[in-house]
């Protein structure tokens, strides 16, 4: 055996030399000659040559040549690291014990790889290990070295091929912990065999609950849960220790100088296993751990052979490589716990798998929040659970059916404050509900909550409904093609939704928010925070046609329009102006499309009429200082307004006197006529100051107003005819 090995050793050194020389073969002979000479003169090369050729039985004591050469190698190793060839030579020298065991440890300690470690060298060293003459401390040192450089070994296939040989060292008491670690790194599904399981169990009965055995066994369980089972106490889930210490300083130094990525992942990733929370509590919503399937279908055992349990996947790259052969975990709900698994969940097509997840989720939610008897004593856990669920749903950009069903029930018992942000977040993920059910399921419970809750809840709810609407519209615009207006949106909910059905649902939702907003604004005295959220909502609504391609345009109710227009803060008025511009753009292009395609959709006259009313009212108020509106819904009678004793009340909502802009008018007045003692705001109305004033307003950042003026009022700046009645550039009329 030894003779055979030495023979093959010399073979390998020959091939090494060949590979060294063949590298430079394509250069010119002269340069090559020079290089060769230089290389031969290099003491490091000479040293390597010495170690590869030294005879068996050469004495160590008093051998200066050995000492000098070893110093040479160490010098290179600690400064630059050793090349793969050098590592092969030195490892071979040390493990073959050609000069006895004394220089062994010293050589091993200087085996600092510069780039990679050749797999063959390690395999040969393992074979030397089994020859058995090496002292046990050196053996341990060698395995520690393998563990340290494991990630730098260029390939692992041959190492896996000699899994059985490595496994046989498990019985060596001193080696066992390190061998277990190495096996842990090398184990694949096919290496788990009954006889190995029995051997390990036998060892465990001898050695007791050793962490290294437990970890290896638990890995075996991951691969073959049908062979063995083990339960690891939570305090022992720390993973393997690393054994980098003899090489640490050298590796670190090298890492700095070479900027080579040395030894990543030396600490073992046990990420899936470690849980931070204490295991004391028995809660319903505690996510199950990722674990491999025990209950396998016997008939599919063949095809299952090359499946990878998802527990084994620890990086996104791995996920991509194995995406076609990942085995789902025993409990689907465990996927919710890891963000990597969520990536996979997004591509799971298996109906049963998703149903399993929904069963679990539905039960966990109802047990925790509907049937709970302890009255929310563990709110902290509930919060974490919902946040995690919310994260998953946002990641998948879709609500789970079971959480939707849960919400329908929960809304009826919710007090509006328990876990409010999370519940509202989940609520906004609800997918389109058929218009026949939307009232009973969603809107009525929400209405009750809205009117009985604080201002902040009202704002939150409007925001949530806005998000929901955006999601519905986005969903629609993604899954409908322009040339294909009626996509049967089947399956999106239980009832097949046609496009018109979808439109009805959206209409129902928007009108509902309109009602909420009108009453809400009254209740809260047109609070500007609430108004701002409502205007957010209408910024979505006004663009349904152009932005989302939905053939539906809904105007805000008067209860929203007028409070926004009479608001005392300029921002609201500005946003209203922007919204009106967008409405106009949408209506115009809808009208054009209606003419061109002659099919499409039909916007009711009522919508146009309402838009025109609003527009005329706005322009008249802001521009013409009159409150005239054709068929206004303003039901205030003249007498009532006259009673207020405000002279010429109709002039009080132009750009100068509107409460939102008054302060700007005053500022402008002071800038224009700094010397005037008596302030006369009406003097701005003259044509020149008027156009300057408008420009001044625009420079204050009112982009909505700017667009509004540009869009709707003719010849503002050009003619500067402020006191003349401006005309509407474009009268939209459906008639």
């Amino acid at each position, binding site marked *: 055996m030894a003779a055979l090995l030495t023979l093959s050793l010399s073979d390998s050194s020959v091939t090494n030399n060949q590979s060294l020389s063949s590298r430079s073969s394509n250069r010119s002979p002269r340069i090559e000659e020079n290089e060769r000479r230089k290389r031969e003169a290099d003491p490091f090369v000479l040293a390597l040559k010495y170690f590869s050729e030294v005879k068996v039985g050469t004495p160590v004591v008093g051998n200066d040549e050995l000492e000098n050469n070893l110093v040479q190698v160490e010098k290179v190793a600690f400064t630059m690291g050793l090349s793969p060839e050098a590592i092969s030579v030195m490892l071979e020298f040390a493990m073959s014990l050609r000069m006895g065991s004394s220089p062994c440890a010293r050589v091993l300690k200087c085996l600092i790889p510069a780039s990679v470690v050749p797999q063959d060298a390690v395999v040969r060293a393992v074979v030397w290990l089994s020859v058995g003459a090496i002292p046990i401390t050196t053996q341990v040192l060698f395995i520690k070295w393998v563990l340290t450089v494991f990630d730098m070994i260029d390939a692992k296939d041959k190492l896996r091929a000699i899994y059985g040989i490595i496994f046989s060292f498990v019985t060596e008491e001193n080696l066992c912990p390190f061998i277990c670690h190495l096996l842990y790194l090398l184990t694949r599904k096919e290496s788990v065999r009954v006889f190995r399981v029995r051997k390990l169990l036998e060892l465990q009965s001898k050695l007791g609950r050793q962490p290294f055995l437990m970890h290896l066994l638990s890995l075996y369980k991951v691969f073959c849960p049908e062979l063995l089972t083990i339960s690891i106490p939570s305090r022992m889930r720390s993973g393997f220790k690393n054994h980098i210490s003899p090489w640490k300083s050298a590796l670190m130094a090298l890492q700095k100088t070479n900027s080579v990525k040395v030894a990543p992942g030396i600490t073992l990733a046990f990420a899936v296993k470690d849980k931070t929370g204490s295991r004391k509590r028995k809660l319903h919503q505690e996510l199950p751990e990722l674990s491999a399937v025990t209950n396998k279908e016997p008939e599919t055992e063949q095809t299952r052979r090359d499946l990878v349990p998802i527990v084994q996947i620890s990086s996104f790259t791995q996920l991509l490589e194995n995406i076609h052969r990942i085995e789902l975990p025993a409990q689907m709900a465990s996927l919710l716990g890891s963000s990597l698994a969520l990536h996979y969940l997004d591509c799971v097509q298996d109906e049963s798998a998703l149903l399993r997840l929904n069963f679990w989720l539905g039960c966990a939610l109802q047990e925790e929040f509907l049937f709970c008897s302890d009255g929310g004593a563990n709110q902290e856990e509930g919060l974490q659970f919902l946040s995690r669920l919310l994260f998953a749903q946002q990641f998948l950009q879709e609500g789970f059916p079971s959480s939707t*069903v849960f919400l329908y029930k929960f809304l009826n018992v919710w007090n509006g404050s328990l876990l409010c942000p999370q519940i509202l977040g989940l609520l906004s993920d609800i997918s389109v509900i058929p218009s026949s059910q939307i009232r009973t399921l969603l809107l009525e419970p929400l209405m009750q909550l809205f009117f009985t809750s604080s201002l902040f809840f009202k704002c939150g709810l409007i925001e949530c409904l806005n998000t929901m609407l955006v999601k519905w519209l986005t969903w629609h615009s993604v899954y409908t093609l322009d040339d294909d207006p009626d996509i049967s949106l089947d399956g999106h909910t239980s009832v097949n939704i046609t496009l018109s059905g979808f439109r009805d649902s959206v209409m129902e939702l928007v009108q509902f928010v309109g009602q909420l907003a009108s009453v809400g604004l009254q209740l809260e005295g047109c609070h500007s925070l609430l108004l701002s959220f409502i205007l957010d909502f209408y910024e979505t609504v006004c663009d349904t046609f152009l932005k989302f391609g939905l053939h539906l345009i809904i105007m805000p109710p008067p209860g929203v329009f007028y409070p926004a227009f009479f608001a005392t803060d300029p921002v609201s008025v500005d946003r209203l102006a922007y919204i009106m511009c967008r409405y106009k753009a949408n209506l115009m292009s809808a009208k054009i499309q209606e003419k061109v395609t002659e099919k499409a959709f039909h916007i009711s006259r009522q919508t146009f009429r309402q838009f025109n009313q609003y527009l005329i009212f706005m322009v008249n108020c802001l521009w013409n200082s009159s409150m005239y509106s054709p068929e206004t819904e303003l039901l205030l009678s003249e007498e009532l307004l006259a009673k207020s004793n405000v002279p010429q009340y109709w002039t009080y909502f132009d750009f100068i006197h509107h409460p939102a802009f008054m302060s700007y008018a005053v500022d402008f007045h002071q800038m224009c006529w700094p010397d005037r003692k008596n302030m006369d705001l009406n003097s701005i109305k003259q044509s020149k100051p008027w156009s300057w004033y408008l420009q001044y307003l625009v420079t204050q950042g009112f982009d909505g107003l700017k667009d509004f003026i540009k869009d709707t009022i003719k010849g503002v700046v050009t003619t500067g005819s402020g006191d003349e009645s401006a005309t509407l550039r474009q009268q939209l009329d459906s008639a």
Partner: protein
Amino acid sequence: MEKSRTSVTSTPISSVSTRRIRRRSFRQSTRSHFGVASRLGLTPGQTTHRFNTSRKAPKPQNITEKVSPEHLALLVKTEWHLCYVTPLYRFRHTQLKSYARQLSAFIAAEKQQGLGVEVGGLQDTFKVSMSVLQGLAETNDDPETVLIQVQSRPAFARQDEPLKTVWSGWLSCINGNPEYLHSLPKDFTCLPLFGSRGLEGLSSLVKSWLRSTFDCFFGPLDINQTTLRWLAALWTNCHMESNIQHLKMQWTLPAAPPLHVAYTVNSSDALALWRSVRKSRAADQEACIEIEEVTSFMEGLTSHFYRHFGVDLSAGDLNQVSTALGSAKVKGRMKISSSRYLISTLSLLTECAFLKIPI
């Protein structure tokens, strides 16, 4: 508007969009179970609405012919702790032996934390047996009931001493909602009712093994007020055929400290009251019992109590009902004393369990 709608519906769907839809359909398919779910959604929060408001009077059945006497002896006269279970994934009645091996290895591994246990190896502490409890299924859709028993040898027992059953439990589905059972994919077996008795620790071990093996969820099955009232009425109705001896009820009233009331009614008095509230011909045994009758029966009982003691029981909660035929507690404990009414009681409980399954 109408016109445009019809015109759009007739537009053929292009191939591109159908492909897109298919990609999407995977999660939709889960929603196809929403046939059940959306119905659930229509009566949000109030599950009792889906509860049968009318049911047949329980008929005494001689199931000794169908079920083996040992099994019957196991089921009756013991108090079971009830749970509901979501449908089991990849459960096969043919694999019970291998499940038993896995479960016993699992229990052994959990009991000796950190030690590996070979599946199928010799277990000297716990032995699990799983078997089919033949004869309980009522319809063809009902999966057969499964019985699980854990046996153990006492710590200092001699080697030849017989094993003692320390825990037993069963998974059952009697008269399950056929619509629901059919809507489930093939991979699922619906056994929603789980009863257990024995050491609490073993219960949670068995449950956690079932959970991880069949990806199901266990939740406590409370026997709610409505069910308890039903049981009281149904059992009273049984007095026509077999003596129930007495109707015992326990109430808790929200006073400080809480007032516990034990209310026992003589069986013949209860039956007389029951007969008086029965709208349908009392002679007609086949007639269904309506929820209104149950309500007025309970009202009769509580108003009688009020007349004598001035305490209005309807303000409190009914916690427990018991007769010679069995007893039921609100915390999900059920004891069936007579095998003649075993099936009807189990179907009532199965119905309760179905109500708890979220989709």
